[in-house]
């Protein structure tokens, strides 16, 4: 009996203590007609070896293509130490630190995490994680609506240049509370949110403005102007940021005159493997004045009976297990282990290490752009400064090209037409610090091959023209 330690003798002794004839008797309060039989649809048990063989074969089947997709999940190097420590049993198999005295390891680590996130974002406080970047944005919106008592409209402006999945998730979550997300267009030439586009909202009751840096296209937004606009218009500002980029980019706490009110994002670039999209972690930081509206766990530093420093869950009155239907959120289990890894990751690299990686990503993506430009009829769509992603237009629709390249063991980019019908031929490409010169050469060569094969097929109208029309 895998995992079950009982010997037959012990079972008998335990049953005798209970006063039951057999184990079945323990289920005698369940109405007999409800009981199910053998679960025929579940396979017979397999040994660890058999399972290993099955799962390894499946992993192997998918291989490890060379990855030029970003789109919210980035292929960064993770120091070996990160996961060797994070998977230590004491971190891996502990529960939420409800008994603080027996959980100082996790609690101090989380306090350090909060400190690091405030360090990176230049915000006052951080929580101890949310599920992922997208749901963190939803929570940030809900939080802004609660916090902005002056605003009655429940209208939140969201740039179209923000990650489309984030927009959808936020929508799916907040619509149940009658909150309206309104889309801000992006500039066709720059790929950014033109501050001018906000002018039509001036004077209206806007609860919050979402600002992405960099945005989904990899483009840098005019965050100072946007932040100041929000403040001037009585809207709270919500930054959505890539935390790795913040090692070189101006942090949201310093945007505009007074910084943003809330910022959130996806923590994956901080030491979390791509692993098919999860588990990652969402983070959320805010001004000190808003802390009581924050969702999620927060760790505080305090003292013990002897006056010694210790750490504990605090402000729990915001949380569902205390406040139930009045809680700031329903979140309970969060992404603790991911945060453990991210904390170790940040400690290993420090600000300078992260900045070097971020800078290398930037230069690699410029290098990739060079190579791809050299392939005829391929060129960058937007002309604004960017971090480590770039929108590239192809002379043909992207979908089939991407599939052919995938067969070539190359994930060549993200097909933007999925979310932006106006961008039919456009793909979003990313080159992190892991992409080598050889891989970029191979990419350019493979793309040239595929495009020349498609030379005969009818040309699609150029993407740029479509957008401008």
């Amino acid at each position: 009996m895998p995992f079950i330690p009982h010997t037959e003798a012990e079972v008998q002794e335990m049953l005798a203590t209970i006063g039951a004839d057999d184990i079945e008797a323990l289920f005698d309060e369940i109405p007999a007609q409800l009981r199910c039989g053998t679960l025929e649809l579940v396979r017979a048990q397999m040994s660890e070896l058999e399972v290993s063989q099955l799962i390894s074969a499946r992993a192997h089947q998918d291989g490890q293509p060379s990855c030029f997709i970003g789109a919210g999940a980035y292929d960064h190097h993770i120091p070996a130490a990160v996961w060797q420590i994070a998977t230590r049993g004491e971190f891996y198999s502990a529960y939420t630190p409800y008994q603080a005295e027996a959980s100082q390891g996790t609690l101090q680590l989380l306090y350090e995490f909060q400190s690091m996130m405030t360090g990176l974002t230049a915000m006052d406080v951080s929580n101890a994680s949310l599920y992922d970047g997208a749901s963190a944005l939803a929570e940030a919106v809900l939080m802004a609506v609660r916090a902005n008592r002056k605003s009655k409209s429940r209208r939140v402006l969201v740039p179209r240049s923000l990650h489309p999945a984030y927009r959808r998730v936020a929508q799916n979550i907040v619509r149940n509370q009658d909150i309206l997300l309104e889309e801000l267009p992006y500039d066709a030439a720059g790929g950014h949110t033109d501050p001018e586009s906000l002018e039509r909202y001036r004077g209206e009751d806007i609860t919050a403005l979402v600002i992405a840096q960099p945005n989904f296209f990899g483009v840098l937004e005019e965050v100072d102007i946007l932040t100041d606009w929000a403040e001037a218009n009585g809207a709270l500002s919500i930054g959505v940021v890539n935390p790795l980029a913040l090692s070189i980019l101006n942090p949201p706490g310093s945007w505009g005159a007074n910084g943003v009110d809330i910022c959130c994002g996806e923590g994956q670039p901080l030491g979390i493997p791509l692993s098919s999209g999860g588990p990652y972690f969402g983070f959320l930081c805010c001004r000190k004045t808003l802390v009581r509206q924050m969702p999620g766990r927060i760790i505080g530093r305090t003292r013990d009976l002897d006056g010694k420093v210790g750490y504990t869950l605090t402000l729990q009155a915001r949380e569902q297990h205390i406040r139930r239907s009045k809680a700031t959120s329903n979140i309970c289990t969060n992404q603790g282990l991911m945060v453990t890894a991210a904390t170790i990751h940040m400690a290993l690299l420090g600000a300078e290490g992260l900045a070097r990686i971020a800078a290398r990503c930037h230069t690699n993506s410029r290098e990739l752009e060079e190579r791809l430009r050299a392939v005829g009829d391929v060129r960058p769509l937007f002309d604004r400064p960017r971090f480590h992603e770039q929108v590239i237009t192809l002379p043909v629709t992207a979908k089939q090209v991407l599939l052919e390249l995938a067969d070539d063991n190359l994930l060549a980019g993200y097909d933007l037409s999925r979310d932006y019908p106006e961008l039919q031929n456009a793909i979003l490409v990313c080159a992190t610090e892991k992409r080598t010169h050889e891989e970029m050469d191979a990419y350019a060569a493979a793309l040239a091959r595929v495009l020349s094969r498609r030379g005969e097929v009818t040309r699609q109208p150029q993407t740029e023209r479509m957008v401008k029309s």
Partner: protein
Amino acid sequence: MTLIYEASRAGRRATAQAPSSRDDCGGIPERFLRDTQARLPEVSELQAVRHYTRLSRKNFSIDTEFYPLGSCTMKYNPRASNTLAMLPEFLARHPEAPASRSQGYLACLYDLQQILKAVTGMRGVSLTPTAGAQGEFAGVAMIKAYHEARGDQGRTEILVPDAAHGTNPASAVMCGYRIREITTGSDGDVDIEALRSVLGPQTAGIMLTNPSTVGVFDRGIETIARMVHDAGGLLYYDGANLNAILGKVRPGDMGFDVIHMNLHKTFSTPHGGGGPGAGPVGVSDRLLPYLPVPMVARDGDGYRWLTEEDCPQSIGRLHAFAGNAGVLLRAYVYALMLGREGMPRVAEFSALNANYLLKRLQAAGFEAAYPERRATHEFILTLRRQAKSLQVNTMDFAKRLLDYGVHAPTTYFPLLVPECLLIEPTETEDMETLDGFVAAMVSIQREAEEDPDLVRGAPHTMSVKRLDDVRAARELDLAWKGNG
């Protein structure tokens, strides 16, 4: 222990993990760049490794201590699940890799969907919710979508027993519902009359767990299901307690319309000091169209993603990608190792352990909250006698247990039982460990009688003594801001 920041020295560059110099970011105009370095610690690899290795040892965990935390199902987390979920190809797999390069991975998810359908008796499963609470949100959102699709507008209330987990009401509120509490009868089952009195055309649904958080199986479940359905409401099953009934009785067969499962409980994925979890949802026929996307479908010989296009009535996505994939893989590995033989054993031996522990604690003089009832996989003691006569309360017992090398059971939950301890030993603990727990409780009881301050001052052997929560909340210190 000192903070990692306190070991930091400005200008330390001891990392082998970053490029040896910083590239020029000439392409980015000055105004976008930060002008001060982010406040992060500057330590060597050895310092980081030593610091976090040492920190880890200040935790209790399943791998080191008995952890009978009721409602949390802290059982052994198989190491094979970790190894296999961390195979290099899985770790490197980009979420946007096309299905043509993802058949192995999709096969795993598809199988897991099938297994979860089989064990819950539901008709469809979506794996995407990232934790129990997000599963609850998805479930209630589906209930809402269902009523809306039928044009059944007036249903504004969700019923929640007073014993329910806090996430239940909180999730329903996030979906825009009002909460109506229903009381638990003195035998632990839902009070049918109380239920009847609140059911009506305003009822959207009810959220239950069965066995409930008081640790007993609600014998009236069929009646409840009939009543709620008759009133036009739907039944939500909080699957946090699925461990108690795995392979024995299925929520679908009890009449539930929607369920979330906590894979980090029943399917033994690690809790990681707070997460991540996974909260897949299963539904009956009624709710099939509303399941959150993405899901995995068979497609000829292969597999493909189902998205909004395939499921136009879906409540949509709740995650930027497809949920906590790494957790799902861990659960899948565990499910395969259990197999059809192993599933019912989970319920059987968790019930055996719980009933044994309950009987021994009763024999030792402790008071069960529901003495007439079978324990399921967990049970409740009430220490109201001790609190009254000795002024030693549940929290004191809990803290003192830490000194005995046992993690405390869940305290003061569910709220309806005074001075309660919710105790869940799980099936992976051996008899000797249970006996050790009884011995510790007996010993603490004696201490409470002979030297109550010893217990009130506990713990004494942890790295810190009892912490001042009030100070923590009052003098908020949430991040290190430098020395001085």
